[in-house]
């Protein structure tokens, strides 16, 4: 089971954090700090796995963003890398040539995509297309409401 996933920028800013286990706020901050220092100590030629307490960190760097997941002892590191890749591909497909700014300004969308992809720390959907369909369907619904809001505003509801 995945314990948490976080996106950390090269400047050490956290761009997204998803926790699949309940941690106290203080511990979360400590973990983020630890993970950031661990990640920044790695060089590009090093392997993508770090042992962190009883967890294993699996990370991959895309441009200026680190995608980092923490998995349990018995979990498969390579499939976790695949998961990261799949998530990035989904983001890429959704935003179209995704970059860090997309994730910053549309962080809620990044969360929605992740929520369709993973649940309770397990992969629940492996089809990029299906994830995209679900999120787009929800977006469509929102757009409808926005236009409704316009009618309401003008007293036409």
């Amino acid at each position, binding site marked *: 089971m995945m314990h948490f996933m976080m996106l950390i920028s090269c400047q050490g800013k956290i761009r997204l954090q998803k926790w699949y286990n309940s941690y106290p706020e203080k511990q979360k901050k400590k973990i983020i700090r630890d993970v950031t220092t661990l990640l920044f100590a790695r060089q590009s030629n090093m392997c993508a796995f770090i042992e962190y307490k009883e967890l294993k960190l699996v990370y991959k760097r895309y441009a200026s963003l680190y995608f980092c997941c923490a998995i349990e002892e018995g979990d498969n590191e390579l499939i976790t890398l695949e998961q990261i890749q799949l998530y990035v591909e989904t983001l890429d497909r959704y935003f179209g040539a995704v970059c860090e700014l997309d994730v910053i300004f549309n962080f809620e969308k990044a969360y929605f995509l992740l929520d369709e992809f993973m649940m309770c720390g*397990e992969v*629940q959907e492996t089809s990029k297309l299906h994830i995209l369909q679900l999120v*787009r369907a*929800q977006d*469509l619904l929102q757009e409808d409401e926005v236009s409704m809001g316009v009618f309401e505003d003008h007293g036409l509801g």
Partner: protein
Amino acid sequence: MSQQQQQRPPHVRIFDASQVIFYTFEEMALKNIRSNLDRLFDKSLTDLIRGIRNNKDNEARYIASCIEEIKMELKQESTFVKANAIEKLAYLQMLGYDISWASFNIIEVMASTKYTEKRIGYLAAAQSFHDDTEVLMLTTQMIRKDINSPNMYDSGVALGGVQSAAVNVICELARKNPKNYLTLAPVFFKLMTTSSNNWMLIKIIKLFGALVPLEPRLGKKLLEPLTNLINSTSAMSLLYECINTVIAVLISTSAGTPGDHTTSIQLCVQKLGLLIEDSDQNLKYLGLLAMGKILQTHPKAVQAHKDIVLRCLDDRDESIRIRSLDLLYGMVSKKNIMEIVKKLMEHVEHAEGSHYRDELLSRIISICSYNNYQYITNFEWYISVLVELTKVEGTKHGAKIAEQIQDVTVRVQSIRHFSVSQMALLVENANLLLSGSAQQRSNISEVLLAAAWICGEYWEHVRDLDGVLAAMLKAKPSLMPGHILSVYVQNIGKLYAALLGKAEAEDDWDAVESLDNLMMSKLPELELAEHLEAQERACTLAAMLRVLEQYHSRKEKVGAEVCQLYEGELNPVAGKAQRKVPLPEGLDLDVWIGEEWQESASESSDEDEAEKTFGQMRVRSEFANFGGPPRYESDEEAEPAHQKKPKKKASTELTPAELEKRKLQREREIQSNPYYVKGTATQPKRPTEFQMAPKAEENGTTSAHLNIQSPLEIPGVVGLSRYMEQQDATLTWKKAKKEKKKTTKKGKKKRHDTTSDEDEAAVVHQVNRHDGEMPENAKSTDDEAEEKTNGLTDEFKALDVNLDEPLRPDEIVRGPQAYIRQTVSHRPLMHPYAIDEAYSMEYQGPLQPRPPTTGPLLKKPAVETEEEKEEDRKGCGGKAQEKEEGKNPWSDGHKRRTGCARGHK
């Protein structure tokens, strides 16, 4: 606009219309104007993010002002404004700001009737709520309400778009209690042999890994398909999972039935070898990791890959190097230990970062000391290695090195001469060694402890007793940690006794007098040591000397008596000896021996008493790490008649009652003594400033010619490289090597037979490889089971469920049964709205079970059509599948989805 209206599903319109009823037209118009105005002035999320990016210098202040704004916004009535505020808060939460104060507002937004707002509310709740959130009760009620909501979108959000796969769910459940899912094994077995969806296969294989310990027959059946997969798959993740499971299967089956699994192991090791040799660092790392697991049960198989593993020691990546260090101890043999350690020593020299260096250091020691020095044939070499290791700067393993030097010297009699000569040099150059940085000093000083002890204990091997004694007496209490100083004082006593004995034997009264003078001139300084034990020992020794001086003034010989104080051989004592002491019959530690003791009595204990008991309490620190039970310093000094005997003798002579009495007395003293410090006493701080002056003085003479060398280089200390040079230069060493080669076969067969070990090679020393002395009547084999279980991985520990307990009726898992719906929905499944509709209960008719469709375990898989097979091949992560998706996204996505999520039916 009207077009958009038509696109909306009908019930949304109804919903909105119902809201309109609540307001009169005027009210609504007013409201709208106000909220429009609000919107104009509100910051949107984008504004906030931009603002933060533009205010990098005073981010905290900017955000504080934003939070104030958000608090204002939350007070407004409009849910739109609120939702906007909550969205901003969700962003701030991600940045690490506390938003727990807004949890009630989040609930409000969650309760919104608009999908956009609800979605944001749920996101914020999922991110920020935790166990202690006060509104948790409200939240669960909200979710329940939303799931039951007739509005299909609400339930969609509440469920988070649940599309979780049956396989996923069962695998997760089964991991918690595998036994109850054994009945499903045939189904999964069929899935495993037929499917090639890698995501699912990995899950299934993991599940089998959990089931195997419960059903050994399953393990046998699994090996074949797993090896097939290992041979056929190109996906590394699947390959790795298969290998891991095969290893797990073999570990669990080999424990029960001794079968021949060499081929499977060979296959795994071969594949892992490929992974390790791969240029991909990730595969290399995982290969080494899995290899380590095989090493625990099949060390022979791993040894074939010694060269690859050794090569990994040179890898750029530290984590890979550490993994290969893990494997090293399985690769070491008598033949190659020197080569391997040499390589490791080179790494120590070049290692960057103290973590890796310390790791290397402790590995070298653990490899060499493995199984009481099983692999070491040349102990002079090992001592050289250890001396070399003391030069490593900033390591925290100084005490470990010291312990090893002591242990080897105690166990290997023939090495003592060499060892003492090296240690004497260390002691004589202590001031040089201590002149390094503070870190270096703390490391090296631990080694001085061993050096001093060895010189004192084996003084008969010391060439220049006077020199060593003089060097030891020079020890500065300000420079040296107290526990080492106390060892120094003790061993000064030993050396003094030795010299005195010699001088008296030669009737050289001048020498006796100058010896006494030397001692009396230097001891007072040591008496001022801050460390209590060092101080006490120094005082005792000085007092003793004053008595001896009186004898000497009357020309009476007392050397023999003094020597008796330190007589006797020290033997290694087993680490568990203390707890193996058999409990004397009729000893009840809870019973009072005398009258019950009254609380107030002990306040008046005078100083003498306190000091005496203090001495009794303290562990003799030089033995604290020595693998034996702690010895009490004063036992020795207070009872010279006992001489030096292993502790166990002394303790067995005491009657239980006496023991008991002592214990009670100790406890009482501990309780009443306000100065008693539990555990190790803190070392006195060594002043750093005024030590400069004496150092400069002392260095003045020696450093002139030594400055050219490395500061730690001591002339005469052989060290590893010089030792190897010397050895290579002599013929005997080469000859010995050859001889050793001849005899290794014989040696291997009878490893535990000491006689065959002895004639193995010329350089072989007689080593006391016993675990150490044990009390009489104690068996070394009792309660040792705990160590064996350590080999198994955590995965199997996690499976430690109660297997004897039968399933409760509600727990029984039946084989999967297909369900048919009575009222068939005509909606196409892949329509975006239809998916969510499936969750609303209205559309579902009653479900009817059908008889199971699956056959018995291991029934041959039904022949698939070519098309299906093709489809199956598109597992995860493949690049081919990517292109496919691009071409026909709709259908491919659907197929793969059903393949993965629903399983093959």
